[in-house]
């Protein structure tokens, strides 16, 4: 508990046992170049291995989904999209097959175009994961997006589109501790370490696993709620 000389990463990144990972999820991440597209930095280019900034978590079957969102009046496009998707859920409740996340660009205060960018990307994920589905099927989206980073700049959709194709079709979707840790890294902005934890517990005769990733280091004072009509 005394002040430590070890870095935070050394103290707070814990090894994850593969057995503790939840079943039925595949994940992948990559460096898509979002940060470089938003704010090209020669220093970053020279700093060595680029950090992942795009991550995809896929459930092999439609999963129940729940969400809480910022109460900031200037809700970012992915927040608006996810809120709408959850509110428009079918009578048996919202289901999702994937969550796409990017760091480097918050896609906030980007207006109608920002929302269209989110919609285009989640639609792309949905179609790439399930080519048999008809494009732009009516109904609530079963792919949600999370974005974090610089405010007021549009997502580099073209850059992300190319990286997405690699994530879905590049044989990189997998389920192991390293892949999940890379997903946690892709969420990071000014964080100094990836945040990933798991736990296991029994529910009746089921051996359940739960995994959590989060990120955040600055602009942190959340007050999140469910949007109107979404309460259980």
């Amino acid at each position: 508990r005394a002040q430590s000389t070890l870095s935070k990463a050394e103290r707070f990144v814990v090894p994850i046992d593969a057995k503790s990972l939840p079943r039925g999820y595949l994940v992948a991440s990559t460096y898509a170049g979002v940060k470089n597209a938003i704010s090209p930095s020669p220093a970053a280019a020279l700093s060595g291995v680029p950090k992942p900034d795009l991550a995809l978590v896929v459930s092999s079957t439609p999963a129940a989904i729940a969400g809480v969102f910022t109460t900031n009046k200037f809700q970012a496009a992915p927040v608006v999209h996810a809120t709408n998707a959850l509110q428009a859920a079918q009578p048996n409740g919202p289901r999702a097959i994937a969550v796409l996340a990017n760091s480097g660009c918050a896609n906030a205060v980007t207006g109608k175009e920002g929302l269209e960018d989110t919609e285009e990307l989640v639609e792309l994920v949905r179609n790439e994961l399930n080519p048999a589905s008809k494009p732009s099927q009516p109904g609530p989206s079963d792919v949600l997006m999370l974005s974090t980073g610089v405010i007021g700049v549009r997502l580099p959709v073209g850059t992300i589109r190319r990286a997405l194709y690699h994530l879905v079709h590049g044989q990189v979707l997998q389920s192991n501790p390293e892949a999940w840790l890379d997903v946690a890294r892709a969420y990071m902005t000014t964080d100094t370490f990836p945040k990933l934890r798991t736990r296991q517990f029994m529910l009746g005769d089921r051996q359940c696993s739960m995994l959590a990733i989060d990120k955040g280091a600055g602009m942190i004072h959340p007050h999140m709620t469910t949007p109107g009509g979404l309460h259980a």
Partner: protein
Amino acid sequence: TLLGLVATDAPIAPAALQKCLEEAVRVSFNCISVDGDMSTNDTILALANGQAPTVQGSADKLPHGAEISESSHPALLAKFSEQLTSLCLEMAHLVVRDGEGAEKFVQVRVRGAGSYEDAHAIASSISTSSLVKCAMHGADANWGRILCAAGYATLTGKSGWTIDPHKVNVTFVAPEGVQGIAPLPALVNGTPLVVDEAHAAELLRHEDICVDVDMQGGSWSAKEADAEAVFWTCDFSKEYVAINGDYRT
């Protein structure tokens, strides 16, 4: 910005999952602050795909394909909710520990308030105060700044409950896992005590700092007002200014 994703293979119905997430976030992510700024993007999502394997020999069988809901399996849902809340707490703490420039992890517990919301508002006010955060950075048992921040907290006003300045106690306590250091009362019944600086230094040199603020019922009796809330924040360092003076939109 705070982003979070929880993925579980537990078979939880969507409405039940939403309710459990709301409760978990209420007492975890909604009780942290690094710099007092709420992002445009804060989101926590939870997925539950029901693919958890069955363990043979268990007496308590869930029918194949069944989803746990409040009406179908209330005890199992309560157990799931407990696990989710505990995990969200751990994840929320990691965010505070990684706060920009943070060197301290500060827990603020407010007790004896008229409602959870009022206790939360007071704890939030203390946790957001730049002066309190600077004091924590400097290992200064500065009860005055804590009291000041408590005094301007925006209370709900619903019940008419208010703070009674003559009843407030402020105590610095040793963090969990640290043995042999007695609590340090700095203010009792609104009256400051002479703070033993050596004792204070012994408590506040730790990375984890715990502050206990007891309203003792405030404008009501202690029996009538026993609500409490816990908030977590970090200290405010030069590094925070350096990071955010450099970050560009």
